[in-house]
């Protein structure tokens, strides 16, 4: 049983559903796939994972979300868990935010919606190797 997870954060449920399914079909049972509809929920998931002793390897986050933007979230994540790979998946790119995330959250990649399955696979695969 796997104890490594990939967490997806987006405020739109359909995005989370298809993203999770896509990752699951690409990487099978190697990892646990968790989703969160907001940054607040993402922190809850992260806590739960910690309790279950599941290690989060990658966080894929949207940028434009309520209250906390994706770049801020990934920066906070990076401060607490510097080993977690951060990926942004956004439909509306704010270049300043991407730069901030690159500098302060060690952003591994920024994917633009609508993303391609292959590029998502490639990013996750190369990030985990």
């Amino acid at each position, binding site marked *: *049983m796997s104890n490594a997870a990939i967490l997806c954060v987006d*405020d*739109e*449920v*359909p*995005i*989370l*559903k*298809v*993203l*999770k*399914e*896509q990752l699951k*079909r690409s990487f099978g*049972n190697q990892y*646990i*796939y*968790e*989703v*969160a*509809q907001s940054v607040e*929920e993402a922190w*809850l*998931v992260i806590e*739960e994972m910690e309790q279950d002793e599941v290690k989060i390897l990658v966080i894929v986050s949207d940028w*434009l*979300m*309520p*209250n906390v933007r994706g770049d801020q979230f990934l920066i906070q994540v990076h401060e607490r868990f510097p080993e977690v790979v951060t990926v942004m*998946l956004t*439909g*509306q790119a704010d270049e300043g935010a991407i730069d901030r995330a690159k500098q302060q959250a060690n952003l591994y990649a920024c994917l*633009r*919606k*609508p*993303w*391609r*399955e292959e590029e998502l696979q490639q990013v996750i695969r190369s990030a985990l190797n």
Partner: protein
Amino acid sequence: MSTYSDAQAAAIPNLWLSRKLLRPLSSQSILVISVGVAIATASAIYFLNQMAERSSYTRLLLTQVKEQVSRLNALEWEGIAKGEIDQNLTEELAENQQSSDAVLSQLRQVGGADSLRNLFLLYAEYKKEIDEALNLVAQGQAEEAISIDVEGIDELYDELYAEIAGLEQVYVGQQQQTRWLSDFGTALSLLLAALVITALFRQFNHNLQRKNQELEAALQELQQAQNHLIQQEKMATLGQVTAGVAHEINNPLGVIRASANNTNRALQDVLAALPTFHQRLTPEEQESFFELVTRALKPRPLEILQESRSLKRKIMADLKEQGISDARDAADLLIDMGVYEQLEFLLPLLKGEQGNWALQLAYNLSCSFSANQMILNAVERSAKIVFSLKNYSHFDHSGQKQRMNVVDSLETTIAIYNSQLKRNIDIIREYQDIPTLLGYPDELIQVWTNLIHNAIQAMPSGGTLTLAVGQKDEGIEVTVTDTGEGIPADVQQRIFDAFFTTKPTGEGSGLGLHISQKIIERHQGRLTIIERHQGRLTVFSQPGHTQFGVWLPI
């Protein structure tokens, strides 16, 4: 080469000089020159007047000399006639002597010595002869005295008289000349004054004209800059809209693309699994399997994730209790399929050898359906955005007013801003039934965009946006209310000013509300552009309640 440069070197000062001469003199140098000339002219005129005065005075003295000379001659003749110099005559002679001396001494002071030398000589001689004759008369020798008269005095008298007359002529001439000169000088200085005034006036006029041209150019530049800024503001609004639209379109596109990929994968897996279906599952297991698929295909609302996660943990725990391997994956699949209640029917299947395989197959079958449903939803959402955008950018190039519904144009704007509104801002719509009005839809949408955009920005950590539309005073009133921190009173007075912005440099042009106000003021079909809308845009703000009101005539 050297010839050329010599010629060039020679040409430079000439050029410089001619430029210097051709260049209009500055007002200051004209003033300095004219003051110098005025002083010089005034002193010349003063000097000429002095000269004329002196000539006139000299002439007066000459006339007096003439009188004294005639008088002396008359007195001598009186003596001869009397044959003696009596008391009376002596007195008169003395008086004459005194007057003559005084006049002559004045003359000596006033007149130039050169021109009068002859006069003095003649007078001295004449006086000598007269004195001699008077002496003879005093000695009683009147006869001899008469002979002196005839031999010398008469002749000298004539000569002296002629000399004085001549001198008088000279001084009259001199006086006239100097008078003429001073008149000429006066005329000249008047002319000069006129010239200076003309030159100064021209200079002034020239400066005025130049200033005028500069001001006109500046005004034109300002107007161009203003147009440019208005254009920029429109582009900024367009930029905000484009960003919103990009988000709104790219999200459903992402869902569509990923769903299509997932469906492909699912169907491939299903295709691979189908041939062995009957071998792998017992009839009972097959029954459970189809029950599972049927339940998974039931339409259901999108689950709330947080709830589903706790559900998942519960199912996982239940399955574990039942001794099912890979309970986590099984629970995950069941939740994703939307099957999480009354799971007893599944237990035999899951506990069987092919449990995981069957669950995966059921999942693949059901998720191609749910993927299609998501694609349909995403297409519908994109179509709605495109429709809103079409309305949004419906620019009426005709410049004609159109019958329009204010609520529709508000809704179009909200659809564009949906991505930002739905997140942490609740929208309350208070729409009354209102008649349509004649207006410019694209301009009004620009106003709604501005007001809604400002309201969203005023509530960075969420709040409530209230849009109210109702009828008021033979018009339609639209209010946009936010629960942000409010606009300070001093800022409120200036928010409609052009270029006033509280946003950081580069974010706001400071024209949004200014242009909105202009659009509303213009919104009534008068002929002049200025009164196109004739509505009102007002603001009321206190912390937690900021309301922009727009009133448009029906």
